[in-house]
């Protein structure tokens, strides 16, 4: 253990102050600074590369996939071969092509549901952190309720009532159950920021509360919001796969979740088709991991103690 010249707490406080009390910089600078801090973290760099690969695969799926997603008529439940690298499904579809096309659904759901949950979390979290009195207590109760009610059972129940709703329904269900955590995190940050001098200055200069919350306080929480987006997107991808695996989505859509649904229903375990079981789950896990890894870098923006390379 080394002795240090500056007490760690002082250094951290200074870093936090530098990060959060600086006068609102231009959005481009914020994005660049966030990006470079995230990139400087080794784990986050791995995550960005994996995510980038998946996005490229999703965009260029029509070029990359050897066959159509639902194109069948090949040998049923065939093992891996030169024509079908990962074999075929029980319905005679090419597994590799389904895997490539399926990436579009997971990435789409992750992006859209993550974004929508984050928007709701920001709106609720920031207003909740700023208001006081009875209103805050009511929001507190509602958010806590959504936090403690187990998400997946609630999703399953809602999805069961809206049966056969497809991707749109899944996004709605995921957002309904996924915004509360972010709202709570952003609220506590808003509470700590609202007592800072720059907010007091804005109040005295006669700015309206709406402007104070969204123009003065919001830019100081960029890192938390970005982190919340990646967290929400990860949860959305896993939830979507889980719901589709249970057969609660539109089972005719080709996605990683429905691939596993059909794999289980056609007894791929008994026929020994390990690739059909292994590949979609691995893709889900890799995509979710990449987002989690990126968040390691994002955490470093809000908490300098979590940055890599700068040890105690």
């Amino acid at each position, binding site marked *: 253990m080394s002795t240090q010249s500056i007490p760690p707490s002082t250094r951290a406080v200074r870093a936090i102050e530098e990060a959060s009390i600086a006068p609102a910089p231009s959005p481009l600078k914020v994005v660049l600074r966030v990006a470079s801090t995230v990139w400087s973290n080794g784990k986050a760099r791995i995550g960005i590369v994996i995510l980038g690969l998946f996005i490229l695969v999703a965009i260029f799926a029509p070029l990359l996939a050897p066959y159509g997603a639902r194109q069948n008529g090949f040998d049923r439940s065939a093992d891996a071969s030169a024509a079908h690298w990962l074999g075929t499904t029980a319905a005679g579809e090419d597994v590799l092509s389904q895997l490539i096309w399926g990436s579009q659904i997971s990435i789409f759901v992750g992006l859209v549901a993550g974004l929508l949950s984050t928007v709701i979390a920001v709106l609720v979290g920031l207003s909740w952190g700023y208001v006081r009195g009875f209103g805050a*207590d009511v929001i507190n109760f509602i958010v806590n309720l959504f936090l*403690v009610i187990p998400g997946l059972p609630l999703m399953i129940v809602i999805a069961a009532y809206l049966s056969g709703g497809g991707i749109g329904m899944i996004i709605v269900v995921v957002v309904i159950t996924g915004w509360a955590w972010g709202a709570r995190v952003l609220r506590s940050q808003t509470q700590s920021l609202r007592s800072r001098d720059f907010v007091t200055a804005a109040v005295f200069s006669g700015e309206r509360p709406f402007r104070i919350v969204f123009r003065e306080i919001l830019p100081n929480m960029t890192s938390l919001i970005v982190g919340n987006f*990646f967290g929400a997107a990860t949860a959305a991808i896993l939830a979507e796969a889980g719901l589709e695996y249970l057969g609660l989505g539109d089972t005719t859509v080709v996605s990683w979740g429905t691939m596993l649904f059909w794999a289980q229903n056609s007894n791929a375990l008994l026929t020994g088709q390990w690739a059909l079981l292994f590949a979609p789950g691995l893709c889900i896990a890799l995509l979710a991991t990449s987002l*989690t890894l990126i968040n390691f870098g994002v955490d470093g923006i809000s908490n300098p103690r979590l940055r890599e390379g700068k040890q105690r």
Partner: protein
Amino acid sequence: MTSVTIAPGSADVSAAPRITGSGRGRAWAYVARKAGLLLLTLWAAITLNFILPRLMPGSPADAALAKLAQNGPVSDATKAAIEAQLGVPTGNILEQYVAYLHQVVTLDFGVSYTFYPQSVSELVSTALPYTLVLVGVVTIIAFVLGTLLGVLAAWKRGTWLDTLPTLAGSFASAFPYFWTALLLLFFAGYVGRLFPTSGAYGPTATPAFTIGFLGDAIYHAALPALTILITSLGGWILGMRNTMISTIGDDYVTFAEANGLKPRTVALRYAARNAILPNLTSFGLALGGVVGGSILVERVFGYPGIGYLLFNAVTNQDYPLMQALFLMITVSVLIANFLVDILYGVLDPRTRR
């Protein structure tokens, strides 16, 4: 879940009025306040369960009655029970609510039509012990093990003891529950033939409190338990590591080090002891995730707990059973959260003020 930590109990403490008096009185006031909050939350969850089917398009009640009619004539009592649970478009909403509350209090949820003529309450009480034991035991093991590994990772920061558990943990916690389950089932069940592939006990066993049956039940629960452990362990490692790193930077830890205390004493009795508290708050929240994950795990292994029952209810659109199960799961998680809150108050006297 992001790894951002919230100040322990910040939400509840600041709003609470300061109660002066003896420590014991303060402690009881804390328990009373938490119990009041539990009752309020229970009421809200029960009411949500009432509102949900009524918000949905179509008429779940009509669908349920139509399904039930396939099993034979529907008695008036059953019809009334289903309407109270799932709603009638024409009825008085307040009367329905009162009837529904009566159902909940008396635990009378009507008849399941998937498992006709068994009552919903019978089905739930048969399935509940399996999930309760499975999820309960595994969650406690995961919490203890993950916390210890997290302490180690933070203390040995930068070494392989940090990198390996952190990376493996974040990778494993990104595994979809059902995928981990499918892989274990495939390799340890079908290929390796090490463990049974489905059920909670062998075909010849009858549930009883005998050594033989318990051994058989543990043998059948091994793979589901391992799945939940693998997937939930990472979250605890990461959470503990992050709070622990913040604690290690605090002055009192530096002071303890400067005093020449043994590193192990500093790590466990100074840093970890304080870092564990914020982690405990997420215990309650994480429990919801584990319960959700166990539904998928039970589906994969055909494990006859609450989750498998819920899956069956959903695929057969057995709304009465589904509603009762959702309520059961929510109430269990709420009560577990309440117990964690109480434990938190015992461990951290500051929250009691």
